């Protein structure tokens, strides 16, 4: 099932284009971060830029939300549900209209097994995709800002936040952990969208509902942005609070969605 989904992505022009757009967004954001820092520094320090004037790579990397190119971060993070739908789920929604999910599920055995496996496949594909995307971006940031040690001033805030203090003490380890956690979270949200897609089965509704849910989670008092963005002044309370509220909403939607799909399946998949 995983291999068939991967080969479907590889053979789909829409999926490949969407992945290419994601890669270009990340690369362009890095370029803009470089461009807003280095030309000015070359003017000020023609004989060599001191490392304390250069942003350190984890702070320059995509998830840190450097002020240059932040509109690209907003596009990729805010519209994450749209990218996920474009990469795999649009195809799945179209497939449900043809009834071919029924064929797949009967070939695999029970319907329950089919749902669990297909949800795991979505989770695996998107967690891996975002891990590779953000991992490659981090490598690019390390190359472009390799001598940098500056945190852009966030050092001043470290004494007020234990989490930020740890991040500044170990920026590389912290950023890698953020990449892993954010990728797993995005993988989980892809399962949410998958469940929504199978429950709703109408493309025109899946896009706004999944996007609305995601923006709602960003706009909550415990905003999802607190666990997706490293090097900010918020402490463990906000970090754990935002992670818990994100997980709770995902679990609730996935559970309700699965119940709806099972109830509907008697009428839709076996009609």
């Amino acid at each position, binding site marked *: 099932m995983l291999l068939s989904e991967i080969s479907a992505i590889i053979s789909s022009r829409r999926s490949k284009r969407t992945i290419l757009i994601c890669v270009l967004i990340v690369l362009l954001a890095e370029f803009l971060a470089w461009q*807003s*820092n280095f*030309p*000015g*520094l070359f*003017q*000020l320090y023609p004989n060599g830029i001191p490392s304390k004037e250069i942003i350190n790579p984890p702070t320059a990397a995509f998830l840190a*939300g*450097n*002020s*240059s190119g*932040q509109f690209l*971060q*907003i596009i990729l*993070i*805010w519209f994450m549900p749209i990218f996920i739908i474009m990469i795999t789920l649009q195809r799945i929604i179209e497939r449900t209209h043809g009834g071919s999910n029924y064929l797949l599920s009967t070939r695999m055995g029970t319907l329950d097994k089919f749902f669990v496996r297909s949800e795991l496949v979505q989770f695996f594909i998107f967690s891996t995709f975002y891990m590779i995307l953000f991992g490659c971006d981090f490598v690019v940031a390390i190359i472009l800002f390799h001598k940098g040690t500056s*945190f*852009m*001033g*966030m050092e*001043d*805030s470290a004494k*007020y*936040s234990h989490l930020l203090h740890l991040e500044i003490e170990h920026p590389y380890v912290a950023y890698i952990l953020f990449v892993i956690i954010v990728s797993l979270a995005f993988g989980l949200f892809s399962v949410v969208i998958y469940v929504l897609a199978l429950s709703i089965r109408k493309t025109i509704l899946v896009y706004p509902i999944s996007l609305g849910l995601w923006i709602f989670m*960003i*706009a909550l008092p415990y*905003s999802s*942005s*607190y666990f*997706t*963005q490293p090097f*900010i*002044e*918020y402490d463990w309370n906000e970090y754990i609070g935002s992670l818990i509220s994100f997980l709770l909403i995902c679990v609730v939607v996935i559970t309700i969605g699965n119940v709806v799909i099972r109830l509907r399946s008697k009428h839709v998949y076996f009609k």
Partner: protein
Amino acid sequence: MKKLATYAALSLLSVAAVAPSFMTEVSADVDTVFDFKLGMFKGNGQTEDEYRSNTSKPWMVNMQHDTEKGSNSVATYWIENTGLLNRNVSKSYDIHEGSGEHKYSANSDANGALIALTAQNNNLNANEPEVSGYWNPED
């Protein structure tokens, strides 16, 4: 008519000659109070334009209040040349509320130009905090 045109030309010339020195005089060593709102999801906020002369002096910002969290909030600041196209003429810096005066160097295209202090929330959340303090285009 010819006389009128001559007077008009002379007046324009004298205004053009006096204006830069006047603007320099106004902006030099004068801290300006600022108070503006930042947009949600990293939307920018900006002060009125101030003239920065041809100088190697740093620009200065002191953010005394940021309503985002109630205490210990941070906002990202830089200066923009507000000419035809707004463009960043310094690096951006995260300033902690109440951390005092911060002085930073500006790019050469900030000199002899109207610039504005620009800021955005450093977090990607939906808050629209208000920031206040004082700044100087050449401290």
